[in-house]
């Protein structure tokens, strides 16, 4: 009985309804609001779709153009090292032997190559001996010469060598060079391409993972097949380590002082504004500053990773200071009160409580700052890191004074060169650079997850 009355809805006609009308019918203003909301959501979605499309296009282009850089064609054949040609004195003296230039080695190598083809019964019809020799990379004789000078006992022997193929042959295997393009190309003829097909069948011309791309230094315009990122990666690694060593202590010290100790007055306000402005200064300006101060005034060697690191540090410091201050600010004041309340000094409060809590934020900011420095090109151009460097910098610590180059600068140098093989390599270098950045960003995320504490 009571249930029945409870379930019965009290009678309510239009008269009982409030002036807002029925909630079952949408008011016109409500419809307009809903439409506006839907539009707003659509704008956001469109922006994200656009951004993702751009990213996808960029990645596809880079990967399709660059992945082939990680494969490299090479030729394997026996070379007879004629002692009479390569060591005229005959006493195996390295100083005497080094009189035989790469040109001599090139001839020896070409002779052996031709001999091998004849022995294998591969027709070289329509290909002159000079063209046959040109199918080997110009880098190959130099590599052989270095091997022989390092080990003079090789003289007189017949050794199996694996040498780089010419960039055009490499390009043919990757589909970049075709019969049509070869007809117009003075560096390669269709007959050579026909021959390389035969070489492939005979197992002389093979294609494998391109370790040289990751290890070798840069090479000249005529031999893209020999060019690698070795020096650039060492230079970038040196600079990143140096930038970290320089910026982290300075950045953290500056932020802790500004955030925790400095009185709040117009001077600290001024400093704060300046730091924010420095973060927005175009990086090339720091390059000019570095050239003027570190090289021309202080006399540090140009093109060296040390000067590069100084310049990148100047650029990274504001970023790190801003990130560190933000994470110091995010530490709740109650923690500082608690520490001060039990009688900790200001420094103990900061060192024992505030900094550990801010550490994930500081590390994230630092790694993102470093990642930005890793991709920076413009300031390095001005301090001479754009120079052609084909010697590895020596091991640290003196190595930081040796000329080096950096990954983004190497990319910049390669895209300027005319040979399309370099375009492929610069795309490959972009992939390497992106991998580095990805590793750094993932590290930042992991560090943040690992050290994040809740309170």
């Amino acid at each position: 009985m009571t249930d029945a009355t409870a379930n019965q809805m009290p009678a309510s006609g239009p008269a009982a309804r409030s002036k807002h009308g029925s909630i079952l019918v949408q008011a016109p203003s409500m419809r307009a609001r809903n439409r506006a909301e839907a539009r707003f959501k659509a704008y956001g979605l469109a922006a994200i779709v656009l951004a993702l499309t751009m990213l996808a296009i960029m990645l596809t282009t880079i990967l399709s153009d660059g992945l082939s850089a990680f494969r490299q064609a090479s030729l394997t054949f026996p070379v007879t090292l004629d002692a009479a040609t390569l060591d005229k004195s005959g006493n195996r003296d390295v100083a005497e032997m080094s009189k035989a230039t790469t040109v001599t080695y090139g001839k020896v190598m070409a002779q052996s190559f031709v001999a091998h083809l004849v022995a294998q019964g591969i027709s070289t019809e329509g290909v002159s001996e000079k063209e046959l020799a040109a199918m080997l990379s110009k880098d190959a004789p130099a590599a052989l010469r270095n091997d022989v000078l390092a080990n003079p006992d090789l003289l007189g022997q017949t050794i199996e060598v694996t040498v780089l193929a010419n960039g055009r042959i490499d390009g043919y295997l990757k589909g970049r060079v075709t019969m049509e393009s070869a007809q117009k190309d003075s560096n390669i003829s269709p007959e050579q391409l026909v021959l390389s097909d035969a070489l492939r069948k005979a197992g002389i011309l093979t294609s494998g993972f391109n370790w040289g791309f990751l290890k070798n230094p840069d090479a000249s315009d005529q031999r893209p097949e020999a060019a690698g990122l070795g020096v650039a990666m060492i230079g970038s690694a040196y600079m990143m380590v140096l930038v970290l060593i320089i910026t982290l202590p300075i950045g953290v010290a500056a932020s802790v002082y500004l955030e925790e100790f400095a009185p709040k007055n117009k001077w600290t306000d001024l400093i704060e504004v300046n730091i924010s402005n420095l973060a927005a200064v175009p990086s090339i300006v720091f390059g000019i500053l570095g050239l003027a101060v570190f090289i021309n005034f202080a006399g540090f060697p140009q093109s060296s990773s040390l000067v590069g690191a100084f310049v990148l540090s100047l650029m990274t410091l504001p970023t790190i200071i801003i990130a560190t201050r933000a994470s110091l600010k995010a530490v709740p004041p109650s923690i500082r009160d608690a520490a001060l309340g039990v009688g900790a000094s200001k420094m103990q409060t900061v060192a024992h409580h505030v900094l550990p809590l801010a550490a994930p934020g500081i590390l994230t900011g630092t790694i993102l700052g470093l990642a930005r420095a890793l991709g920076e090109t413009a300031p390095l151009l001005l301090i001479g890191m754009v120079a052609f460097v084909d010697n590895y910098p020596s091991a640290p610590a003196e190595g930081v004074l040796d000329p080096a180059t950096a990954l983004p600068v190497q990319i910049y140098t390669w895209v300027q060169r005319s040979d399309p093989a370099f375009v492929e390599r610069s795309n490959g270098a972009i992939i390497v650079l992106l991998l580095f950045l990805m590793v750094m960003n993932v590290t930042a995320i992991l560090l943040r997850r690992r050290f994040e504490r809740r309170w």
Partner: protein
Amino acid sequence: MNDMRLLERAVDTQVNKITARKVQVYYGQNHALKDVDVDILDKTVTAFIGPSGCGKSTFLRCLNRMNDTIAVCRVEGRIDLEGEDIYDPRVDPVQLRAKVGMVFQKPNPFPKSIYDNVAYGPKIHGLARKKADLDEIVESSLRKAALWNEVKDRLDAPGTGLSGGQQQRLCIARAIATSPEVLLMDEPCSALDPIATAQVEELIDELRSQFSVVIVTHSMQQAARVSQRTAFFHLGSLVEYGETGQIFTNPKDPRTESYITGRIG
């Protein structure tokens, strides 16, 4: 306020711990505290009551110089701890705070283990030479704070994982681990539920045997329950100060009467 116990609330000692004379506090141009004269007795719970913004917390924070951390804050007048001026230029506030501990409104344990929370103060003040000494301090502090039985099996667990009431008792344990002489409590129960509040109040009453406790509270019932002496602040002035029983049953100042009967504040 006809609580009969109030009249029995006798003060055990008449020894002055803190003497404040003509204390003025300015926040920039704002004169926040005017001419405060208070004598805080040893081994006594003193309650500061008053409406929000009346300056009671400000005065509390003067007693261990926590106001030093606020750049615009300026304190004038004289506050003596056992006859020594705590605003003397020779006084290091850090050393003062080891003698005058503080518990805050919101439980604020360090994001560290329960053990480390309590051990932190003794560690930085060098109160324990050996690990065993430190263990003992931690245990006795947690026992005094009536938390030992609840946490003795998980001293390595994070202090932030405790319940609100436990966290506040942990903060009290942390404050008494440095064996202070005065314990300042700034609305210690405002973030706690009634059961946790009752536990903390019981604790405050026990702590009275060893420390001089000063508590700021918004709850007049709480002041009546735990304190022996009460000070009523209004608009930055100390209106009335005396035995808790007298303040709540027979206030001299009409403003005090208005406040405790709920007409102002």
